[in-house]
């Protein structure tokens, strides 16, 4: 998951080549890599690639601070989805 997110951000969002290669712990907001529109692009990508709907209330800096925090958030959402599916089944 980290590799997929890192690759997408590196290819589609990073505009300053000096910021590459991107570390999974690189701050995405403080370095200006992610702004509100690129975050929206990332959210659309995440929905398409991982089938995770990011709630508007979850669009907080803590979840999108780095590739690592994005993946931690996604795993928690996937876990939540699996838990709900399991309880329904």
């Amino acid at each position, binding site marked *: 998951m980290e590799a997929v997110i890192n690759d997408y951000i590196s290819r589609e969002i990073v505009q300053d080549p000096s910021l590459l290669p991107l570390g999974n712990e690189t701050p995405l907001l403080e370095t*200006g890599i992610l702004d509100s529109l690129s*975050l929206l692009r990332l959210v659309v990508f995440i929905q398409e690639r991982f089938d995770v709907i990011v709630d*508007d209330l979850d669009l907080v800096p803590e979840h999108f601070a780095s590739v690592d925090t994005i993946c931690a958030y996604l795993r928690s959402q996937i876990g939540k989805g699996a838990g709900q599916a399991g309880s329904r089944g």
Partner: protein
Amino acid sequence: MGEAGERAGSPRRQLLRKAESLAYWLVGAPLVASLPASLAYRVACWRGDWTSRSWPEKRSEMMDNLHQVLGDELTLNEAERLTRDLFRFRSCEVIDVMRLRGRARSLARLVEIRGREHLQAALAGGRGAILCTAHYGSHQSAFSLLHASGIPLTTMGRWDWKYDAGVSSVERRFWNLVFARRVLRHRQRPHIEPWPGRVQVAAQAAAALRANEVVTISSDAAPLHAERARAIEMPFLGRQARLMPGVITLAQLTGAPILVAFVHRSPDYQHQVLEISPPVPIDGQTKTAFGRCAAAIEAAIRTSPAHWNFWFEAEVLARLGVLPAAPPIGTAALSRQPADG
């Protein structure tokens, strides 16, 4: 006195202007707005003429701005007429804001909305609609009116007076009281303010579009220093200007169509027309697609330069790149009128 000081005028005159502006917004305009429209807007024009005469430094700065950008297209007489109209329009815009009270019927009687069918057809697609506009005419009041007429609408833009370090908390409260409170009564959602670091703003706009609502974006906003990397350079008003193409990115991500909208004041100063275009094609590269929006904005400015609010703001024109050099420092906040930019 330095150049900035000369442009702002003597401290006594600055203070008088602030006091006059305060009195106009708090007392004069609310009273004048309750008069019959023909009389109310005539009084607003007199006040605009008075402001113009009593602020020769600003008048000459605006004439400079007009000449530097529009160049040989303008004769001296035309530049003087445009400057006079800029002051009159600004004064009339305060009356527009006051006439938004209640269900805004007293302003609705004076504003014709053309192209509403384009907006309704766009909303029938179920993906919302983006109105691409500019700091042009009485745009905030016009959008309030559109919302009051039954179109669910939210505005997006920066209101500098809320964040400018030079604006005191008293002044912020003042503009909230006299301006923001009145226009924001007629919005579907809270005003969306795209400041650097506010990572959720595009998602807020996307949420409104997903709910099949209208979002307005002023695409002539000058990029802040932190946004320069994301600005694109393109021909605008005869120079390579720096503009933010976010409207295109938002449309491409959400599937919402973009329509352009401008509000024009008639020669009688009281009547206005809000004109909404059919959808603008957004195919091609971002720069190509945004070029169509920028061309529509430039055409509106060239057709009626007196409607563009940025002639007052040389600093904004410089940040946009349509003025060649950094201008003198701006004047005190109460001497200007709130504008998102």
